[in-house]
């Protein structure tokens, strides 16, 4: 009996035990993950939710990205990703 208790207490304080607990807790956290559907992005599409809320600064940055890096769009939810700009 003492032997078993010894093994159990050794297991309780082992890295493997805590590793298992961390993995289980992480997996249980996945149940809280929710994807934002395309039609639910109204709040994200507001100008104040953009990387640069100031419209003049945003236009300047967009121009820099377009002229220096050849990329455009995708900085706000309302105009990016639909291939329509």
């Amino acid at each position, binding site marked *: 009996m003492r032997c078993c208790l010894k093994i159990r207490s050794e297991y309780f304080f082992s890295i493997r035990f805590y590793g298992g607990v961390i993995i289980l807790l992480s997996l249980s956290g996945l149940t809280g993950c929710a994807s934002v*559907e*395309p*039609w639910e992005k109204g709040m994200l599409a507001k100008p104040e939710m953009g990387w640069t809320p100031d419209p003049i600064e945003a236009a300047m940055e967009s121009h820099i990205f377009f002229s220096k890096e050849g990329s455009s769009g995708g900085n706000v939810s*309302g*105009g990016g*990703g*639909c291939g*329509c*700009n």
Partner: protein
Amino acid sequence: MHHTIPVCILILIVFIVLSAPANSAKIGDSYPITLPSLFDSKKNISSNDFKEKVLYVDFWASWCIPCRKSLPQLNELRERLKRNGKDFEILAINLDSDPNEAIAFLNKYPVDYPVVYDAEGKYPKLYGVKGMPTSYILDLQGKIRYVHSGFRSSDIKKIEALVHEMLP
């Protein structure tokens, strides 16, 4: 250490299951729509009301930037086809979280076709909308014949050609 690979596989399976693609409408499917009008929540409008017409179902929101182009151009297309005696109608499904934002948008960009409001997002889920705007052209039997994502001004000609193709 020898448990690492099975644990990684298990985690991978969990992620794959969680990221499984949602339902998506296919060509030939039929999903009748019944929703309240955006302007009068007591008045229901159904896609079955337009069964003898080619129906353009347009999912849109006031915050969707291309919708500022698509709604006025679709309205013009509808007028043009109507003048030519074509059985064509547009049913716009608004997906704003606040219907007042949609009403304010329509005051700025008015349209003559029916606009319904889907507060719970039931129909975009059913149709498998993947971006805004997305539209579906339904034939005279109410079956999906064409799916269109996004909007460019040049799309109007393609849509018009498709409608002509679908009408006798």
